[in-house]
């Protein structure tokens, strides 16, 4: 399978803090990759590097075979990369529907009528139809998280980056979310998903990487990786010898 996303020796640090350290991996087209790691491991920074919010100090990032290391964030979105934020960041002064329309018309470059149809589909899919005309700033946290996912979907991504969207959900909501993400996957969208709610993650992803201090310390089958010694030590925080 061809890789849709490829990171090669990506390095990024802020002063003494390294958020990406010789980071290299590939995401195959159609693959769902899970990312775990302790707080401050550089997971969200990695998304910022992929979407273009941050520029790497060195190393290269390629999307669908094209080098995008110095491409603008807007152009990367148009090329097919969209993300959700751990802390929802809606356009608070605009309605839910308008939030989606921005992504559909600007990110996905859809003409007006098709953009409307796309947004309606996504509202249905993410359960936000009843809130379509509500101001995004007035939504509850859960609804804002759904809006994060919905807005990313309206950009019609081929690579979807999800940043801790399962946090704070009830068991039932979490199952519904896993169902939604599985559906998205089945349409051929590749997914990179950062998540602390490991059981939700394991229900979807084919592969797992573990980050610590910006370094990739494990990469492989999700269950094997979670059970590995490195992960037990670093991520779960248990002494391996204990």
């Amino acid at each position, binding site marked *: 399978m061809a890789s849709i996303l490829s990171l090669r020796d990506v390095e990024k640090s802020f002063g003494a803090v390294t958020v990406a350290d010789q980071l290299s991996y590939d995401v195959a087209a159609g693959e769902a990759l899970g990312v775990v790691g302790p707080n401050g491991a550089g997971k969200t920074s990695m998304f910022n590097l992929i979407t273009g919010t941050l520029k790497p100090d060195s190393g290269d990032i390629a999307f669908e075979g094209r080098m995008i290391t110095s491409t603008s964030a*807007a152009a990367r*979105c148009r090329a097919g990369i969209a993300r959700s934020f751990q802390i929802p960041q809606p356009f608070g002064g605009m309605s839910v529907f308008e939030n989606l329309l*921005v992504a559909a018309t600007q990110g996905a470059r859809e003409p007006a009528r098709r953009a409307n149809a796309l947004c309606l589909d996504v509202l249905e899919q993410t359960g936000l139809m009843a809130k379509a005309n509500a101001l995004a700033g007035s939504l509850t946290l859960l609804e804002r998280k759904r809006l994060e996912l919905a807005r990313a979907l309206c*950009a019609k991504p081929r690579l979807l980056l999800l940043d801790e969207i399962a946090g704070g959900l009830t068991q039932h909501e979490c199952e519904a979310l896993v169902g939604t993400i599985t559906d998205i996957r089945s349409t051929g969208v590749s997914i990179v998903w950062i998540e602390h709610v490991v059981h939700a993650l394991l229900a979807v992803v084919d592969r797992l990487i573990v980050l610590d201090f910006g370094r990739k310390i494990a990469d492989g089958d999700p269950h094997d990786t979670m059970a590995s010694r490195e992960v037990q030590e670093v991520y779960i925080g248990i002494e391996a010898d204990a």
Partner: protein
Amino acid sequence: MEWVNAIVQGVLLGGLYALFAAGLSLIFGVMRLVNIAHGDLIVLAAYLGLTTTIALGVHPLTSLMIAVPAMAAIGYVLQRGVLNRTLGDDILPPLLVTFGLSVIIQNGLLEIYTADSQKMNAGAIETASLEVTGGISLGVLPLIMFATAVAVIAGLQLVFYRTALGRAFRATSDNQDIAQLMGLNKAHVFGLAMALSLAVVGIAGVFLGIRTSFDPAIGPGRLIFGFEAVIIGGLGNLWGTLAGGIILGVSQNIGAQIHPGWQTLAGHLAFLFVLAVRPRGLFPRIEG
């Protein structure tokens, strides 16, 4: 009756002030840029109108067809070429650069057109008026200007809340970083916002040049009137800006009615009063 007349004329004058202010308000709303050169750009537009009128031998109002697109083009190039580079976390660079721009425009105009006062002659329409009742008559030209101001404000409102471009403006204004992640090219969006702002400036400038005499040095004064209209109306509210312009125009005319020398002073006092009583303006929209 003189007083009623002063108020009515003040309302009509307020339309022109709203035109001065609308572009300023739009730019601040979209990119938090305070354009110190705004008044000088209005004067530049007036000279553009004058040159067009003389060179092509057309009516001053017809010169709008040249001045408005020309100003819009200047706006886009100015934003992409200069102002975008000044925008960031620090609010000082855009202030300094637009201040510098103000000085450059004033001196450039002085060099080309000299310090002599100019005025565009709109012919018979300037003196035409409609008799409403006994002592009150409405000038056709002020009426046209006021109607245009209302139409411009309504048009901007429509663009902001009903079009993809407006959504792009509002999304970028709301959160620039997220807007870019949604595929919006910030530099281009800001360029379009400045183009729209200066298109309105084009109208305001030509109207100014028809209504009164002008010279290269009057820009900063128009900037102040524009600022006052924006602040009185409340930041981020276009209809509020129109109301602000009207309040300013009426105050000035009432001041002039009391004593001819009090015209400008009365406007400033009204502004000061609103600022003291309602520091965020009468109809604020932008939070914080």
